[in-house]
């Protein structure tokens, strides 16, 4: 079947007819590593969600007990809500900013290359290092606000639930806007110049060109960038763990942190695996939804235009 469909381009297939025996073997090491430590754990997280296990004793099959306990726990809707807020707010803040900066950086002036280099720096830092830095910067007694005697900056940033969530969104943006700006810079540079030249002849202004040419042409970059942002924000763990540990109270207890706390602090591995399954399902659903929006061939590069 596949032989006949591929038969359209006989020249491309001919070498494989002989090399076909070798090529699959080349993919084997990567496949084995991925199956062993990604696919098996993926199946494992589903299986373990039907058990009870406290990390020390035996793993006991307990059917739907973990699911029942998690699904009736008010902590779950709360964690989902916190995750949704962080995802939505950081997306809504990062996307317009990244597009604007990307368009700006796509200009060909030399100094913009230098800017791009400087922009890259937050990407070199670990989330732990960033969280540690902001913890010190935002300290109400010894932080930047107190040191400069600016009252507006001297707040109990990580002690007030609303502020703490805002800080998480800001720090996430600080960490990732540079990366997404670089994606958009690449995307903008691939927009055919002739489109702008034609629009210029028609007397279109800069704003008009941005909305009628740049933005529609960036469609796939926007989808790629949004997918990375949204699927990535489901698993924000390091940053929140070091910055707020989910607090104050559980104001910033997002799903990934909730999973860790249930599993490794409360020793309820079954319940933690239920959260893990939910994370996988939500991530997969969002990625599929965004791909549907993009309406593109799933075999095409995700990072195209990146």
């Amino acid at each position, binding site marked *: 079947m596949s032989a006949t469909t591929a038969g359209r381009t006989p020249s491309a297939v001919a070498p*494989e007819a002989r090399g076909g025996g070798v090529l699959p073997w*080349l993919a084997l090491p990567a496949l084995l590593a991925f199956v062993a430590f990604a696919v098996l754990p993926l199946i494992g997280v589903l299986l373990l969600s039907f058990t009870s296990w406290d990390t020390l004793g035996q793993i006991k099959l307990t059917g739907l007990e973990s699911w029942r306990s998690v699904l009736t726990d008010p902590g779950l809707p709360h964690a989902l809500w916190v995750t949704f807020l962080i995802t939505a707010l950081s997306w809504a803040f990062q996307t317009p900013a990244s597009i604007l900066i990307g368009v700006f*950086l796509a200009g060909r002036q030399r100094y913009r290359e230098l800017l791009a280099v400087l922009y890259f720096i937050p990407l070199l830092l670990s989330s*732990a290092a960033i969280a540690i830095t902001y913890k010190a910067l935002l300290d109400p007694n010894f932080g930047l606000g107190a040191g400069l005697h600016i009252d507006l900056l001297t707040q109990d940033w990580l002690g007030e639930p609303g502020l703490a969530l805002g800080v998480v969104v800001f720090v996430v943006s600080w960490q990732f806007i540079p990366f997404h700006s670089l994606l958009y810079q690449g995307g903008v*540079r691939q927009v055919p110049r002739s489109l702008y030249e034609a629009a210029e002849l028609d007397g279109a202004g800069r704003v008009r060109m941005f909305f009628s040419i740049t933005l529609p042409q960036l469609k796939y970059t926007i989808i790629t960038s949004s997918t990375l942002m949204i699927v990535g924000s489901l698993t924000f763990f390091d940053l929140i763990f070091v910055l707020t540990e989910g607090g104050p109270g559980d104001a910033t207890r997002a799903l990934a942190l909730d999973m860790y706390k249930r599993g490794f602090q409360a020793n309820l591995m079954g319940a933690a695996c239920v959260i893990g399954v939910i994370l996988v399902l939500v991530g997969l659903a969002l990625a599929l939804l965004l791909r549907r929006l993009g309406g593109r061939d799933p075999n095409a590069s995700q990072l195209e235009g990146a």
Partner: protein
Amino acid sequence: MTATHTSAGAERAAARTSGRRPASAPQRPNWLGGLVGWLWLAVVIIPIYWIVITSLKTQTNYYLTNPLLPPIDPTLDNYRLVLQLDFPLYFLNSLLVAVGTVIPSVLFAFMAAYAIVRSGGAGRFLRAVNGLFLMGLAIPLQATVIPIYLMIIKLHLYDSLLGLILPSVAFAIPLSVLVLANFIRDVPKELFESMRLDGATEWMTLWRLAFPLTRPAVVTVSIYNALTVWNGFLLPLILTQSPDKRTLPLALAAFQGGPYGVNVPAVLASVVLTILPMLVLYTVGRRQLLSGLTAGFGK
């Protein structure tokens, strides 16, 4: 990542076609973009600047001086303190885990990407493998840490660096395969064909043709994977427990939470020390990336 490659090519092409007209695209300045661009640059740079200058202050000066002014009498005492506190060991741990992850993951991914591209979607097996890796991109693999924890315990690798390396390799594979495959696809078909006519096996073609021609991509993917592993936090957190198995991010968090945590300049000195290698790698990699590109065009 493909950006640097393709956009540089596009840039050249644009420069060529536009002739003597300077290639400055839309002529009116982009005020809003410029404003946001420079503003956000300040937002990015100020904390970094603050980390560096504060790490050179004494603890007393940290409390007393203007936080945004550099120290009058810079001191390296904080660095000396951090280096005495086992940071060289954590550094070595991070280095071993990063090297141990990057080399196998990039080699395996390159071989798989080569096979996927060369089969041209003809083989059912390789199509399925490709689909599996693409799916791996959409799944938050961190959600699977509990089974990984269990597996690593059963393999008697808990609290060992090898136990960190194995899952890290698996996590790095999907994106590496995707990016490398995109680059291998750009290698002209005629080159593969002439290798074949010369009687080269796929194995020889892989290492002598595809690998050297896609070196910029290999460098980029290696740097990206090294960064991810170097900065990784969750796996070391759940898969190790002894202080002497800590990697740097974990050590940073422990340092701030520990007795020295009140010494902010020392904490920030440790932050600077963890970034330095990545800064070096990025600087070196950028240059290698460029030379790889120019070598490709210069012939």
